């Protein structure tokens, strides 16, 4: 995309250091991105990837370090400056107005009226050229997540970038959308736009990227060619420990009684742009893990809330926990009949970040662990409960008095999963068990879920991560457009067959009673 004959690397960063209060986020980090290269930035949560990227995009100013961009030493002042230099970024969370059209959204991101001249034609041209089909007049609200991502990419490409930064771009895509994205990215790289690709999906990095910089605890630990390493080797460099795969579990005996039954669960979403749940019927036995796959925004959060009792079902019988009709019960009553829940969002939903771990242990644990006496909080017992979670789940923290927000994402997730698992539920529902969690913590969470199922609980995991579902689940259903497909045995399913259902194309609507064979 740039006409000048290039020489030398596109971007060289050396000695980048950024000190946050109480945390050295980047400690003399180096990064070199060559021209025409798709370069991966790998690391656990909290390894300092996002700080480094924010420095490149001008959001964060480094304390020390030198940036050489296109042969020139630069100080990147702000995102506008980064864009003028030719750096574009597609964030993990999109900034789009749901009620506006594609073209309107793109126009809003442009500075002056001059830039808007011929915008429509340019959108169409770029989207055709790079295999990013988009109708400029569609309203964003009606678009899939993959299409929304295309808007963000097109928005960046309009600026003729030399470097495109992509933050976890595939976490919201179906397998076929991922393949299409990769075609686009390879083509961009071939034409002179380097890509800095941030991901924790090691298989993808191996397939796509020609070089990878791996970070751990704010420092560089390696620069490798991903194709020359196995996924296991990459993961081990990333977290500096040996990984052992979870051992497969035997299937639950078919004679086990159902512990969680949904009968034609139908719920209107309370959110304006939410997804209504339609006629969901499922049955989970004790000892069984059911995985609900699906692309974000297809009713997962509504299903979670309907199961936890945050949204009440119309009929009590549409949600049965251990044979008790619970559709009309709130979360507190459902816990009393042995249901436990881990919502997707940790901050402000599963946990109150400004409260201590002990208070957060109390938040959902007080019912089942009897932490209240005569209306007064039993501080000693609460603290002991929190301490127990910290110990059993190896939560890295200073103790029960630490504020939840002082924990890294992975540690807080371990704490929240531990809080529910240690309540010994009969039914556990987890939405995105390892979202944004490092590999070590993810393994610990997976093992806890399996152990709980082995102990006789029925576990439902709702996840966008197909790998996770294939590792954990005995049976797999797909949620698309608020409907849930009939579960299939994991050993009979393939990534392709599940991926097709996730696209919503040939999803057979789940109707009527559904017992497994």
């Amino acid at each position, binding site marked *: 995309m740039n006409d000048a004959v290039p020489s030398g690397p596109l971007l060289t960063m050396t000695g980048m250091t950024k000190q*946050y*209060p*109480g*945390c050295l986020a980047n400690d003399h980090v180096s990064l070199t991105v060559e021209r025409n290269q798709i370069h991966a930035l790998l690391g656990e949560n909290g390894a300092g990837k996002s700080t480094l990227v924010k420095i490149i995009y001008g959001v964060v100013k480094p304390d020390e370090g030198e940036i050489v961009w296109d042969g020139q030493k630069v*100080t990147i002042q702000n995102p506008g400056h980064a864009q003028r230099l030719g750096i574009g970024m597609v964030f993990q969370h999109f900034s789009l107005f749901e009620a506006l059209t594609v073209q309107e959204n793109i126009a809003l991101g442009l500075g002056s009226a001059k830039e808007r001249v011929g915008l429509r034609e340019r959108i169409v041209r770029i989207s055709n050229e790079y295999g990013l089909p988009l109708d400029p007049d569609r309203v964003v609200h009606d678009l899939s997540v993959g299409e929304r991502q295309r808007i963000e990419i097109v928005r960046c490409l309009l600026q003729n970038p030399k470097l495109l930064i992509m933050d976890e771009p595939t976490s919201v895509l179906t397998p076929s959308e991922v393949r299409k994205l990769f075609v686009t990215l390879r083509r961009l790289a071939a034409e002179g736009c380097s890509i800095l690709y941030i991901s924790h999906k090691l298989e993808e990095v191996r397939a796509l990227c020609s070089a990878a910089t791996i970070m751990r605890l704010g420092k560089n630990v390696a620069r490798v060619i991903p194709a020359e390493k196995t996924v296991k080797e990459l993961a081990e460099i990333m977290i500096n420990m040996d990984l052992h795969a979870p051992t497969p579990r035997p299937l639950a005996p078919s004679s086990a009684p159902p512990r969680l039954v949904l009968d034609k669960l139908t719920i209107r979403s309370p959110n304006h742009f939410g997804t209504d749940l339609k006629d969901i019927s499922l049955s989970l036995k004790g000892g069984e893990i059911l995985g609900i796959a699906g692309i974000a925004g297809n009713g997962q959060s509504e299903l979670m809330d309907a199961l*936890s*009792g*945050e949204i009440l079902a119309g009929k009590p019988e549409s949600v049965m926990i251990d044979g008790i009709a619970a559709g009309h019960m*709130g*979360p*507190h*009553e459902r*816990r009393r009949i042995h249901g436990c*829940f881990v*919502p997707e*969002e940790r901050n*402000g*939903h*599963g*946990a*109150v*970040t*400004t*409260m201590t771990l002990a*208070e957060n242990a*109390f*938040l*959902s644990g*007080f*019912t089942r662990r009897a932490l*209240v006496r005569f*209306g*007064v*909080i039993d*501080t000693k017992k609460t603290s002991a409960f929190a301490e127990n979670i910290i110990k059993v789940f190896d939560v890295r923290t200073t103790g029960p008095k630490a*504020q939840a927000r*002082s924990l890294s994402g992975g540690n807080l997730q371990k704490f929240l999963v531990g809080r529910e698992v240690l309540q010994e539920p009969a039914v556990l529902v987890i939405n995105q068990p390892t979202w944004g969690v490092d590999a070590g913590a993810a393994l610990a969470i997976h093992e806890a879920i399996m152990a709980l199922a082995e102990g006789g609980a029925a576990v439902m995991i709702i996840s966008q991560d197909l790998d996770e579902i294939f590792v954990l689940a005995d049976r797999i259903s797909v949620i698309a457009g608020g409907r849930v497909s009939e579960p299939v045995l994991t050993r009979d399913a393939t990534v392709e067959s599940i991926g097709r259902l996730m696209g919503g194309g040939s999803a057979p609507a789940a109707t009527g009673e559904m017992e497994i064979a």
Partner: protein
Amino acid sequence: MLKIESRGYESRFWRYASPVLALLLTGATSGLIFMAMGRPAGLTVYTFLIAPLLQQDGFEALAVKAAPLIMMGVGLSLAYRANVWNIGTDGQFTLGAICGGGLALAFPDAPSYVIFPAMVVAGILGGMLNGGLVAWLRIRFNANEILTSLMFAYITQYLLVYLVTGPWRDPQGFGFPQTALFSDDALAPRLIEDTNVHIGILLAPLIAIGLWFMLEKSLLGFQFRVLGQATRAARFAGFRENRLVWIAMLISGGLAGLAGLLEVTGTLGQLTTTLSPGYGFTAIIVAFLGRLNPLGVIPAGLLLALTYLGGDAAQINLGLPNAVTGIFQGILLFYLLGCDILLLNRFRWVPSHAKAAR
């Protein structure tokens, strides 16, 4: 140049130092204002904050003024911690006074052990009625309680004026807008004979301690705190928001009603058109100065009570207008909210040559 940067955590030191800094800044700023008005700054601050206490009955007067402020400030800190923004305690105070006072006027001959407890109940119920209406409007119609509670403050004030100048006016009062005096049996019991030091002065700190325990140690208080910090987490835990809004409005309204009843039975002895010199609004400052902690509200209430006395002294001794009290309180609230930036942030001096070297 001076840079503001995030600490990344909440400073324990500034949690307590920030109100002190706000006080110092308020003293300095009001001193400048007094200087601009041609009065010596030092003398004015002295007149405002110290002279009232040197009076013979200075501490009694302070306690009498502080009691209603503490009661209302405690109720407000509870409500604010739950994100229920009741700013109409002045109205709840007035309705409590009207309900309790009306009972005293209706039964002038009732014996004290019947009439006074009945008035206390009526006062609390009056405040709760006003607060409950606000809660109902928020829950039923999603009406913002900041607006409705404030509007109710005006409605009750006009109701008071109507009653005092109309049906309840003292027939022997020479046409003054006031009711008959309450019977002695209907007055608040005194802690010290022949003074205004009434039972409310004992009650206020007890209520503060009780509600502190409730907020920090009980399941109900925990629910308030979670609701205030993360609504979704409260829903996840199974706490019912509507129920908590009701309770917060009823408690803060009821306490304001009690404060109003004690004010008319403790110091005024009758209903007039101006029962409250803005106590309900000052209580908002009290709640914030006390860090929304019921125990912190006790010293905060004493301090703002002092500004009322100081305002009187400044009027009499220095010939300053009555508005100085409001100005002083307004500056204080401004600095209080402003200084809280130091909780999560710090100022750092970045020498400009360091920047050039980079």
